[in-house]
């Protein structure tokens, strides 16, 4: 148990009569890459929203580093070390790449509202630090020369990278990625796979991701949970999942299992 950075205990989520999640328990082991897969409408994103406190589960608990965070305000999970990205990239469109990254550092800023007006030394120092750190981060993802472009001026793959970098700016312990490979071609997917592995090691992260693409998940995750119709149908290593008849039937239909 000590090794789990995140654990969900018997989480259920009901919207009126619809049971979106039914008694789901899962653990994310520290410095692992864990995946959550399932067909459309399985409840993956609902699970993510529960974990990130955007939804309060009807039953069950979400525990992050031994602390019960169920019912936290969603912005409060960032200071304790969780950061997320979105399924459809959600950068701040009217801001530059640099400003996008700088917003990631927002919760580390300590100065008060009157300080920018009086231009106190603390304000000037922290602004400079934030800018330098943002440049450093951009250098690490090889986008420094595009710092002053508008976020929407980048290619899709680059935007995805910026979004992940923006999440990294909050210095998370656990990075939650919602379908990071959605809408990418095979080459971009492979590049992204290496990118995620690379940042996981260099930033000392734990990664928890939702994905549709089986190949991607199998190539990157150490442990996989499978959801179908709001219930957990399997968990295990990629090899175990690939052989699991329940998973195959959920993805391909009953008929394919027997053959």
């Amino acid at each position, binding site marked *: 148990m000590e090794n789990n950075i995140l654990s969900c205990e018997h989480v259920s989520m009901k919207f009126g009569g619809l049971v979106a999640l039914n008694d789901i328990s899962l653990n994310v082991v520290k410095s692992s890459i864990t995946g959550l897969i399932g067909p459309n409408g399985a409840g993956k994103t609902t699970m993510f929203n529960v974990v990130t406190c955007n939804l309060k589960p009807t039953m069950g608990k979400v525990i992050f580093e031994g602390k019960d965070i169920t019912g936290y305000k969603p912005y409060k999970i*960032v200071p304790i070390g969780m950061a997320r990205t*979105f399924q459809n990239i*959600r950068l701040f469109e*009217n801001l530059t790449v640099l*400003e996008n990254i700088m*917003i990631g550092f927002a919760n580390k*800023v300590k100065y008060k509202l009157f300080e*920018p007006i009086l231009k106190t030394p603390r304000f000037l120092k922290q602004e400079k630090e934030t800018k330098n750190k943002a440049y450093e981060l951009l250098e690490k993802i090889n986008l420094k020369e595009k710092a002053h472009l508008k976020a929407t001026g980048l290619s899709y793959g680059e935007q995805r990278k910026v979004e992940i970098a923006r999440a990294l700016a*909050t210095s998370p312990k656990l990075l939650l990625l919602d379908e990071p490979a959605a809408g990418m071609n095979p080459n971009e997917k492979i590049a992204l796979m290496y990118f995620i592995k690379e940042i996981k090691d260099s930033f000392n992260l734990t990664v928890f991701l939702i994905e549709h693409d089986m190949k991607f998940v199998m190539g990157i995750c150490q442990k996989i949970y499978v959801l179908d119709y709001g219930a957990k149908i399997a968990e295990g290593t990629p090899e175990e999942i690939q052989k699991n008849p329940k998973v195959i039937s959920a993805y391909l239909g009953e008929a394919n299992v027997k053959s």
Partner: protein
Amino acid sequence: MNRNVILTIFSIILLFVFLYYASHHFSKYTIIILNNIAITMILAVSYNLINGITGQFSLAPNGFAAVGAYTAALLSLTPAQKQAMFIIDPIMPILGSIHLPFLPALIVAGLVTAFFGFILGFPVFRTRGDYLAIVTLGFGIVIDIVANNAITITNGPLGLKGISNYTNVWWSYGWLVFTIFVVMSIINSSYGRAMKAIRDDEDAAIAMGINTFKMKMIAFIVGAFFQGVAGGLLAHLITTISPTLFTFFLTFNLLVIIVMGGLGSITGTVISTIVIVWGSELLRVFDQPMHIFNFTTPGIPGLRMIIFSLLLIFTMLFAREGIMGKKEFSWEWLFSVIKGGKKNGK
């Protein structure tokens, strides 16, 4: 960095030299328009902070300006004046005896308005969506009704008269420079970036750990403070205030200004305030009878508004995001334009 500070200070000094010249050589009519520009600009710049920068659609400025104007006026009028003015019902005893100099009166007006902003914002910003527009629209109407009926405080539809004419170009432009300085300082800090983040994508802003409620409250309350001050300045410029002065039309005018200048651009707001306030004075010729060659057109009151609408339509056609979009003026930009111009010249 240093060069820019020097240039900014220099241009502010230049502005005040111009104002010194203006106050001695220009006609009284022009001076009033200059004051009007400054006060409208304070209202518009602070309005842009919540509408353009933070992206929360508020319709509060007329209510806020009314609160500020009445507060400042009641504080700066002498007890004897107030006694004489309240003929329907006597003034509330506490208000009747208070008397403050101009600057404290303005600051108190700002603080009272900010407090109203707090009361309005606190419940509204707990929800998401367009509730702010509805609540602030209602606020303006409530203030109008209160001003008409709370006779012991506002003197009802008779309004307040004989307010000392304290507002001159120094007061109005002093406050204008201060407003722009404060608003720009907030925009160019972590607070401003958080506000812009909320405008662009609230969910993503939350995921970055931004306390969106707090940021919206800050933008709204800071805006309310300056709108209250602007209301106070206005009261001491025209010396007579009544509920009819602060109808929704005031908010509508400001909305036109900030949209035309570019939502989210303070530079744009400054430019479009000058264009619209000065322009609507210049266009007054169209309201009077005109002699074109041998024809004499009859004076049609309101013709200038039609021409004005045409101008607005053209702005919408050719500058979708307003004059400045979301860009701001910077000295770097100016220098690059000058250098670019020289290169082209060669």
